[in-house]
């Protein structure tokens, strides 16, 4: 009982961290894409 | 105020007249309701006594599916020939356009419900005639809840890509309290549990939901239609 108890406690906290880290990774990916796109567009505007 | 209500009534009349001429959404949603009723008989293979315990749930699932089909057309029917723009440009307050649309959807959905109720009773041996009036009161309140939220979301999503997919995804989670209350009450009524509608807390809940969303939607529709 105590071992499963601890195991599920571990699962719980890891799940929480994994969800948050997953969200952070999502944010980072989206941020990179936006930065790249923004730089490209600014360069295009300057070219004109 | 009275002018707005008069305008709302004429919009509701116009909607109902076009609908009863073409019968496009009422036919579709009534036959859809029938098909689902038939499908349920294959999904649940249980004795008649036990069936009473899930009857309210089944009935309201059917009604909410039919409702989503009806409100989907509510504002979308104005899109061809830019009728919606003309409606918005007309000297009628936004809330009365909305109220008219909601009332029309309410009448249509109530028609579908009254059509499918006898079929439901017939297929599943549910005795509903004895409790028809209390059931009708529940149907009025819950149906208004479904159509007022539905018409609001219909206005909201009218210009959205994938409107037909987006509306149910937004509508059903919002409708959960209405459906819970209506399902519980209907199951209790059909299972001939004593329900005192005047004091029942679920009945009050339906009333609260209707009031909250009617006022919210009538106030916010201005922002939706006149961007």
């Amino acid at each position, binding site marked *: 009982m105590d071992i499963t108890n601890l195991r*599920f406690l571990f699962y719980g906290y890891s799940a929480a961290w994994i969800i948050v880290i997953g969200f952070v990774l999502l944010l980072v990916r989206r*941020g990179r894409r936006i930065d790249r796109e923004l730089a490209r567009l600014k360069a295009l505007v300057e070219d004109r | 105020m009275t002018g707005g209500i008069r305008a709302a009534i004429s919009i509701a009349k116009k909607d109902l007249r076009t609908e009863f001429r073409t019968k496009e959404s009422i036919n579709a949603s009534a036959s859809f309701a029938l098909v689902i009723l038939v499908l349920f008989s294959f999904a649940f293979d249980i004795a008649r006594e036990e069936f009473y315990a899930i009857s309210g749930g089944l009935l309201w699932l059917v009604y909410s599916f039919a409702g989503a089909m009806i409100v989907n057309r509510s504002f979308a029917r104005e899109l061809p020939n830019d009728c919606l723009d003309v409606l918005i440009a007309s000297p009628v307050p936004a809330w009365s356009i909305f109220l008219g649309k909601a009332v029309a959807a309410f009448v249509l959905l109530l028609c579908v419900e009254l059509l499918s109720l006898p079929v439901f009773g017939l297929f599943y041996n549910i005795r509903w005639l004895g409790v028809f009036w209390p059931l009708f009161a529940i149907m009025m309140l819950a149906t208004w809840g479904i159509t007022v939220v539905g018409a609001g979301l219909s206005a909201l999503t009218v210009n959205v890509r994938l409107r037909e997919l987006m509306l149910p995804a937004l509508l059903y989670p919002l409708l959960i309290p209405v459906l819970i209350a209506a399902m519980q009450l209907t199951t209790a009524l059909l299972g001939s549990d004593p329900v005192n509608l005047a004091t029942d807390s679920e009945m009050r*809940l339906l009333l609260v939901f209707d009031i909250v969303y009617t006022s919210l939607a009538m106030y916010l529709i201005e922002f939706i239609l006149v961007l």
Partner: protein
Amino acid sequence: MREKFTYALGLGGLLLMIYNLHTIFTVLPDEAQQGAIGRMLFIHVPAAIAAYLFYTIAVVSSIAFLIRRNFAWDSLAVACVEVGTVFTFVNLVTGSLWGHVIWGIWWAWDARMTTQLMCFLLYLGYLLLRPAVSEPTQRGVMSAILAIFAFADIPIVIMAIRIKDIRTQHPSPVLETGGLDPTWWPPFLIGIVALALIGSALMLVRLHQETSQREMDSLRRELHAI
């Protein structure tokens, strides 16, 4: 400056969280009836509270957007809803794991769980709607109205479910009963603060992205105009 502030918030939250984890796992004794799994409280409840905090900010900024039509409010609202939804998900997952140990089932259709799930679904609908609308003003107005609709739904859902299901297995909320051991209060409160800080940092990052996205859209329009 902005980036430094965001990192400081995030780092502060993270440090608090690590300090808190140390207290939770090494200092505090096991919960008398539940054993080790009782410690799930320190992530489960703060996540729910932080989520509601962000939902509240979201509805306030949605109303502000409808009145002021300033896109900063729209960005704030969407950033808050996204972080709130992530925290609601954390709350649901940890609760489900706790229930698996204590109740022996992953999910009970109990009042608070159902409410949380509804919240999650409502705000998921909000996040689904946004990419479907391309015109910025329209998108802002629609999502603001949906945020208000969703927020109004939460108390009614709570009412509906409480009527239906009086006999709940879910422990009474500590905030309502105050039945928490004095030694458990500090890590519990620190947990709320830590998650709120981490959430704010994430929210600021998201907010900045939304601002850049808008800048990008206006650049695109400019390019088309040329």
